[in-house]
């Protein structure tokens, strides 16, 4: 079990799930806004990535309880995340720079 005793309640878990659902709805809405309006992909992409990062952090922090765990586990998890993020950055830079 997580280190901190003040774990979320059932009601809080449901609220977090609703927030995740709303963020997913915004993501999908953004996709269609780009399709149907003059909004550019260049503007939408950072928003979409930001929403995905927010959902990612919410699930990791509250559902996986990393927010309440020892820092050792956060650091362990961060190693893989940072390395994978670095890999994406290199690939995207390669694509953008041709």
């Amino acid at each position, binding site marked *: 079990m997580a280190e901190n005793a003040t774990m979320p309640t059932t009601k809080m878990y449901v609220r977090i799930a609703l927030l995740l659902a709303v963020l997913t709805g915004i993501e999908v809405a953004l996709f269609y806004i780009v399709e149907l309006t003059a909004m550019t992909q260049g503007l939408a992409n950072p928003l979409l990535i930001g929403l995905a990062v927010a959902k990612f952090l919410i699930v990791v922090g509250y559902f996986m309880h990393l927010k309440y765990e020892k820092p050792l586990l956060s650091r362990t998890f961060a190693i893989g995340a940072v390395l994978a993020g670095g890999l994406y950055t290199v690939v995207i830079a390669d*694509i953008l720079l041709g």
Partner: protein
Amino acid sequence: MSDLAHHDVHESTGVENRKLGMWFFLSSEFLFFGALISNYLLFKGQVPTTDALHPVQFYDIPFTSISSFVLLMSSLTMVLAHHALHEGDQRAARTWLFTTAGLGLTFLAGQFFEFSEFVIKGAGLDVLPVWSSFFVLTGFHGAHVFLGVVMLLTLFATSVRNGELSEAQGLNVELVGLYWHFVDIIWIVIFTIIYLIP
């Protein structure tokens, strides 16, 4: 479940060894999926998005959005199973475990349907490199979901057979939960990078 810490805590870290091992495993899985997603991104750029065979022309965003929602909600049911067990409510834990497995199977059925649609419309592993990378990436993710469903159903069957989940099995629920949430966060990344950003 917090009492488990007394049985299996690593002396210097203060964290259960199996739990620490699971976090190391999940961290390494980031690189596994990171390589597959990068592979898709590299191949995606080789074909114009206006090409009739580009995956973007095949995606059914409303359908995939519903699948994503199902997987997202399975994370809620998973954490509720874990929470119920922590509160000592064995019956609720069993119900939520079974619900999570059901939502996982629903997601897999959706993925099977989506793959079938793509193949009918002309996609395939050997059509274009971008399709190979797409099927390998989403297929491996689906395999992870399937493995998670097997573990959930095993926990459910154990709970039904024994009438309850013991403290040791409670740690298993926590570990399976971590794995399940990880599969969910990988889908959060896939859904945005592969489906929503052309």
